[in-house]
Structure formats: structure tokens, C-alpha cells
């Protein structure tokens, strides 16, 4: 009975069966590992596990740094996206390639590069450390720096695409009404790019939350200061499997809590 109804609905939508099949396989491919995880979960001990300081610290740190990194990425990335989308200057394609690089680079390599730049003996890190004693590695700010490095490209590319698709004539109209360039940017350009900014921020946040390689290489691993959820899971996996699963479940729950409420219409232009 159910199969017949399904078949009729499918043929009404006129989707070829093989497309539906492939799509179903895609969903299953992603769903099965989660189901396996849920099946292994130590449900009876969960409450106790989740109360442990290692879990609480890691969660707090992960969420804080993910939001901080997203905020920083928006502050720096939205103007950059605007420049890439709206201006022409020699070397623009080089700039765009550079900004995209962290997406392609293995995160550990990114972390190493950050060390070479901002570590105690790094290109910029050394003079700053010598004069002020400030050091990014081994601090929470190091985690934010690593997260921003790997996640910002997602925001920049998404917002740049949104700006390109937006109609520049509205900015002309605003100019004829006497709006200054910064007023145009604030009240016309950015709001019009709203959906792409939201989409970019979500991608950025999600990437920052899951970041591991660059964080552990650059910021190190210390509970409460630099041990984010992914790091905690990695180490727990070898010593305390149940804790690792509990941590993973929390990570999944937090991610879903942020991503699910975002409706399509906020993500499409």
C-alpha cells in the first residue's frame, strides 16, 4: 500500500527513479554513521558523563571560540567580500586565491603556518612577544585565531557571491538621494546581502566548531583554555570511549540546535 502511494507521488513529481535512489543513498551514507553513534551511546551514564568538567569546559570553549571566530570573520570578511565583489584592482584574483587558500590547505599545515607567523619565534609573534609579552599560542585567543583562519574563507566567498548577485543600481538610487558611501554600505549593501551573510556566518561557525588540526597545532591542548570539543573527543577516544561518544553527541546536538532553526528563506537571496 505504502509503496504504491509513494510511487504515485514520485511520478507526480516527475523525478526519475534513479535520481531518487542516488539521493536516498546520499542521505543514508550520512545518516548511518550517526545511527551507529547513537546505538553505541552510553545512555545510562550520559548524565554523569555530561556533568564532568572536561565536557563542560570543552563545550564552553568550543561555543565561545566559534562565536568569537565568526564575529571576527564577519568584521574582516564582509568588507573584504565587498572589495572583491565591487572593485577592480590589479592583483584582485591573487587576493581572492589567498583568501581561499585556508580552505584547501590541510588544517595542520594551516596551524603550522600560524605558528611560523605568530608563535614565539614567529615573523610577527616574536616582535610582539619581545615588546609586550603577549602570545597567541596556548591561549584561548590562539584558538580564535586558528578558527578564524580556517573558517573565514567560507564567509568571504559566500558573501562575495551574494554581493555579486545583488543589484548595484539600488546603490545608485541611494547616492542620488544624498547617501554617503558608508551610509550606502550600511543601509543598502549589507542588508541586501543579508541572506548570504547569514549563510556565510553559519558555514563559518560550523567550520570553526569542528576545527581540530589548526587548533591543536597552533593553540595547543589544555583543558579549560584551549581544549575544544574536537580535541577532547580525539583524546578521549583512546582512553575513555564512553566520554568520547558523550562529547560527540553534545557536539551534534549543539550544531543541530543552531542549523535547524535557520529556514531556507533566510539562506536564499
Amino acid at each position, binding site marked *: 500500500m505504502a509503496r504504491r502511494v509513494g510511487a504515485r507521488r514520485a511520478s507526480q513529481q516527475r523525478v526519475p527513479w534513479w535520481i531518487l535512489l542516488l539521493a536516498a543513498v546520499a542521505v543514508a551514507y550520512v545518516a548511518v554513521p550517526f545511527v551507529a553513534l547513537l546505538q553505541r551511546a552510553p545512555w545510562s551514564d550520559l548524565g554523569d558523563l555530561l556533568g564532568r568538567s572536561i565536557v563542560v569546559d570543552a563545550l564552553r570553549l568550543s561555543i565561545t571560540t566559534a562565536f568569537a571566530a565568526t564575529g571576527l570573520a564577519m568584521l574582516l570578511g564582509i568588507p573584504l567580500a565587498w572589495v572583491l565583489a565591487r572593485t577592480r584592482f590589479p592583483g584582485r584574483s591573487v587576493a581572492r586565491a589567498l583568501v581561499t587558500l585556508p580552505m584547501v590547505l590541510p588544517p595542520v599545515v594551516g596551524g603550522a603556518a600560524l605558528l611560523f607567523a605568530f608563535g614565539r619565534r614567529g615573523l610577527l609573534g616574536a616582535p610582539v612577544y619581545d615588546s609586550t609579552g603577549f602570545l597567541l599560542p596556548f591561549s584561548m585567543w590562539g584558538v580564535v585565531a586558528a578558527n578564524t583562519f580556517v573558517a573565514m574563507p567560507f564567509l568571504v566567498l559566500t558573501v562575495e557571491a551574494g554581493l555579486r548577485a545583488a*543589484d548595484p*543600481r*539600488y546603490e*545608485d*538610487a*541611494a*547616492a*542620488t*538621494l*544624498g*547617501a*554617503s*558611501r558608508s*551610509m550606502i554600505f550600511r*543601509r*543598502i549593501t549589507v*542588508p*541586501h546581502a543579508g541572506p548570504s551573510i547569514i549563510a556565510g556566518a553559519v558555514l563559518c561557525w560550523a567550520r570553526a566548531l569542528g576545527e581540530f588540526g589548526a587548533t591543536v597545532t597552533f593553540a595547543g591542548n589544555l583543558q579549560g583554555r584551549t581544549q575544544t570539543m574536537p580535541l577532547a573527543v580525539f583524546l578521549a577516544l583512546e582512553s575513555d570511549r564512553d566520554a568520547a561518544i558523550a562529547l560527540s553527541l553534545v557536539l551534534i546536538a549543539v550544531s543541530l540546535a543552531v542549523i535547524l532553526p535557520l529556514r531556507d528563506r533566510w539562506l536564499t537571496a
Partner: protein
Amino acid sequence: MLHAAIGVQIGDFRLDIGLDVGDGEVVALLGPNGAGKTTALRAIAGLRPLDDGRIELDGAVLDDPAADVFVPTAERPIGVVFQDYLLFPRLSALDNIAFGLRARGQDKASARRHAHEWLERFALGEQAHAKPRTLSGGQAQRVALARALATDPRLLLLDEPLAALDAGTRVQVRAELRRHLATFHGARLLITHDPMDALVLADRLVIVEHGHVTQTGVPADVTARPASRYVAQLVGINLLHGIATGEHTVRLDSGAELTVADPLPGPEVALAIRPQAIALHGHRPDGSPRNTWTATITDVEADHDRVRVTLGGPVAATAEVTPASVAELGLVPGTSVWATVKAVDLTAYQR
């Protein structure tokens, strides 16, 4: 008062026009698509700097490349109504109108108060909080106009203000626009490709073709004496060029000769013939008309209760006849007919 000498080069296209608009005047810049009208508007608005020339408004120089003077768009005392209105989609009608006032430094409360006044003036009080996408074409146009006027500009620019409307609303909105434009006393420049817009709304016409001005004047003069084929076609008049071969005879480029009732004004003339004045016959007509020729029908097109018949041959022209004639004479493309026009129906003027 706007004095504009506009020189702009875009790739191979060169725009070179001179334009004056007095306070209290509505000037229409009329021309076919691609003539350069929108470029001219963008130059006056400051959205596209001049390559050479000079734009001056009420004595203040807005753009003078030779003197290295350029006033940015935001600082020009202008208001623009764009072709698609470009109302800010995320702002209500009220906030759209208030935008220009806020841009000029007014606080939100007083800007909104002023915007309300404008809404009332344009009978849009109920739409104050509506978003642009919920407004009808006519309402949107009024909001766009109010938005442009709210900042008290010295010059109002309108870019194809009725193009976004369907044929039915256009007639009514055109009449309304005429009334609203009359309430503004500064200089008004209107860009359009629709001759009806120009004829209804403008005090003076400037015809632009291929980047140059081909004719200026009040609507009545321009339609009576079209200086170019484009204008003639626009107003539905046949225009033929020829050389005077006598006081009353004109030899066309094709070699055919036509006789005109009034004395010719000069050696090179343009002959205007109303389509209705051309009569079609199945056989060579008897009687007086001096201007007789055979023509081949190239097109037959019904236009409400009249039929326009395009004629090829020594005298290329369009005749307008009744449907009955079409039936009676069997007028179909490819067939031949005899055409006549009375000398008194030919208007000649200097080219």
C-alpha cells in the same frame, strides 16, 4: 536652470549632446533605444563622469573635466525616478521616502513626519507601512516620485517613468504624472522612448539619435515637421527626401518626381505625407492628381479600424486605408497597385 554639454565615450559609442532645461520647464529627451538617453541621464546625475563637456545647475558647476571639477552624485541637488523605481525592498514606503531626508542629516522622527506629508500629497496615506513589493505599479511610481521630491531637489530626472507599467495602467498613470509634475516648480528632464509620454508630459522635446541631437522644439512643431525618419515614423508620417527641380517639383532620390502645391522652401527638401492622404486604386486613375505611381505592396497591417499598407517602389511610403478597400482591391503583399496623392497634401520643408 540646467546647462548641459555632454560628451561621453563608451567603447565605440560617442554621446555628444547639448541640453538646457529651464526652471518650470519639462523637457523630454526622446529617442530610440541605444540612442544614448540613459547615458545622458547618468552623466547629469553624476553616476557616469563626463569625458568632455560641462554640466552646470543653477550656476554651480557639477562636472567640468577640463577644469578638473566633479561633484559626486550624493552632493548634487537632484532627484531621480528610475525606470524600475528601485524602491528599497526592505524599507516601507514611508521609510523609502524618508531615506533621502535621513541621508541629509534629519533624525528619524522628523524625516518620517515629512515623509508622511508627501504620502498624503500623493494620496498614499494608507500605504505608509507597505513594502514596495505589495504596491501596485501606479502606487510604486508615486512613491518613487515622492522619494525623489522629498529632498527638495533643483532638478528632477525621470528615466522612462512609465516603462514598468502595462499598457492599460500607463494611460491613466501618465495623466496622473502630468498633474504631479506640475506641482514641482524646478527643472524637470524626462527620458523616454515612448512618443506619447513626450507629447503628454513635455513642454519641449529634444530628439536624440545615435548619440546626437537631431531636432528640438515644442511637440507641435516637431510632429508637424519631423526632421528625421525616426521622428516621422514615431508620429506616423511619411518622410521623403528630394531635390527641388522647379518651384513646385521635387525629384526624389529614387528618381520619381512629385508636385507640391506650395512653393518649395529651398533646394533640398523633405516632403511629409500623411498616410491617410495616399489613395490606392486598382487601375490607373483618371482625373487630376499629378502624383501617380505604381507601387508593390510589401506589408499589410491592421491597426484598430484602419489598415496600414506599406508600399515599395519609386515612392516608399505607408498608406492608410479602410478594411473595405483592402477587401475590394485585394490588397495583399506582392501585388501591385496604383497610388496617388494630391499636391496640396504634400508638405515640403527645408532639410
